[in-house]
């Protein structure tokens, strides 16, 4: 059986790739995809823990994954909607230009 650490290592690597992408990429679509990457990294760790840890209620970790799926789907829908609206407004999708909240 593959040790738990391997799963966790994969999840960590994916998470940091996503985090790096979220901070570094300029295109909104890419940023949203990176967020999905981070959420999935968390999902991997959840499933892994669920499998390796004894629990009074079997499958609790997997249930969380479904919640996260739902959430990420909603987020993607709203996020992509905003992206499309922004594109119509500005004809560009660069995050750098969205500094309307500048102090």
């Amino acid at each position: 059986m593959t040790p738990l650490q391997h799963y966790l290592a994969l999840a960590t690597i994916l998470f940091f790739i996503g985090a790096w992408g979220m901070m570094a990429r300029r295109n909104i679509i890419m940023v949203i995809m990176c967020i999905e990457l981070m959420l999935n990294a968390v999902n991997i760790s959840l499933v892994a823990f669920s499998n390796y840890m004894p629990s009074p209620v079997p499958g609790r970790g997997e249930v969380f994954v479904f919640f996260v799926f739902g959430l990420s789907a909603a987020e993607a829908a709203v996020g992509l909607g905003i992206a499309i609206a922004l594109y119509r407004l500005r004809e560009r999708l660069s995050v750098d230009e969205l500094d309307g909240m500048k102090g």
Partner: protein
Amino acid sequence: MKAAAILIPLLPMTSFIITGLLGKRYFREKSHYLPVAAVAASWLLSMFVIVQVERGETLSWQIYSWIAAGNFNVDVGIQIDQLTAVMLLVVSTVGFMVHVYSIGYMKGDPGYYRFFAYLNLFMFSMYMLVLANNFLLLYVFWEAVGLCSYLLIAFWYPKVSAANAGTKAFLVNRVGDFGFGLGVILIFVTLGTLNYTAVFGHAGDIGTGTLTAITLLLFVGAVGKSAQFPLHVWLPDAMEGPTPVSSLIHAATMVNAGVYMVARSSPLFFESTTTMFIVALVGTFTAIFAASIALVQNDIKKVLAYSTVSQLGFMFAALGVGAWVAGLFHLVAHGFFKGLLFLASGSVIHALGGEQDMRNMGGLKNKIKITYWTFIIGALAIAGFPGLAGFFSKDAILEQVFLGGYWYFWIVAITTSFMTAFYMFRLIFMTFHGEPRDLKAFGHAHESPRVMWVPLVVLAVPSALIGLALGFPPGAGHIDSFLRPVFEEVLGAEHHFGLLEGGLMAFSALIGIVGILAAWRMYVIRPDLPVKTGARFQGAYRVLLNKYWIDEIYFALIINPVRALSRGLWRFVDINIIDGFVNGSALFFRGVGNLFRPAHSGKVQSYLFTMFLGLLVLLAAYWILTL
């Protein structure tokens, strides 16, 4: 008696309201009907009241509770006794005559209705002032007559000098009222009541220090209202008002309020020798001070104004030395003859079409005969010519000052007497005798209409005879016995008229006549003398002509510094310090905000980066700490 007492003030009040509200639109040139009728009725009622008092009836009547707050209780109430009766005599008679006179004098003035409305308001206030039965009510109408005085001085308000004079009169009086008001409060705090009877009943219980404080504060009020030094400055300026006003308010009635108040409070003043001395001192000093200024004034009304200040000084001198009755007697006599003199001077001014400068008059005695002869009667009365009103009243004062041991005051007073005779006859000779100096005005000069000269004649009668009627024989005349109940506790035993008294009387009569003769010599026989004398004593002449520069001193020492201080406080404290602090604190927070502003670039990714960095730092810290 009650009905009469309440109607006396209420009739003019009603007439004031009706005339004031409807006069402009409905009454116009008929505006005087109602006011004159009201004042005439008040006069009749006053005479009725005086007769009742003469018969020994007095009245003390609480009408309603005015202010009741905690232990502070003051009623609106009326008190009528001999002192009130004496005041009523002067107020109602002169008031009535001035109303009649004004019908002619103010004819055609655009503010005709306004004038009579104000006069009525004044009559109401003055009646209430003398009828009041407690100190607070006295204070109320003290201010109210001041208000009327303000309104009437500034009656011709488009004139800058009139507007200024009105404001000045009110403000100077306010300074006096400040003292008076504090005195009233101090009486209340000390005794817990303000009712005359109650206060005087407990006069003996007050400590000497407090009593002196009370009486001095009250006297400050009297100094303001009766135009004594150093608060006399408003009265000469008050001559900007129409002449009937000068006669009624600034000679015969309102300015006497101070004298009345001190006399009314005699049980208090009597107990404090310090205050009494100060009253006598201020009175005597003002008498000679004002008389000296009157010597050189050229405006006919200004001479009379300073003369009024001087005569009021006499009255205070009398009160200060304890000659209560003599002081009040002089008040009555002065009220009549000075009221007459002002009305007569108004007649002169009327005849010359508004001219007030005596240097432009002269030779009028045949043109306006009635005015001339009534003027002569008034002048002789004030100069103390034997047999006329002033002779008895003023000599009673002089005599008692001397007999009281105040020989130094007597010397000052007798000198003032000389000056009085001199400046009054200087006025007469400059106005009525010699050659006319302004021929154009002289040509148009004419005797006043009947409605104006009748009051002159009417007032000339008491000016001439009231001395004999009330003051003869000296020291034991009718007025002495009449007023005795009021001053029972503060008057010494009656003294007898002896050789010394007779000598003093003759001497002062002589002084008066010498004064008249001196004026005769300077202004009739040798008309070049005044100019020469003026040139010879140029310094003194300029000091007198400029009234000792008192106004200028006030401006330099009080008014301008206060204004400068106020402006400084506003600019510096309000705008710089307080607002500076407020706006400064706003600026401070804005500055702090600017400091951190760059961090909020609005770029979500940089925020995220910071968050991650922070998370890493926290993790690292946790790791190190749990190591």
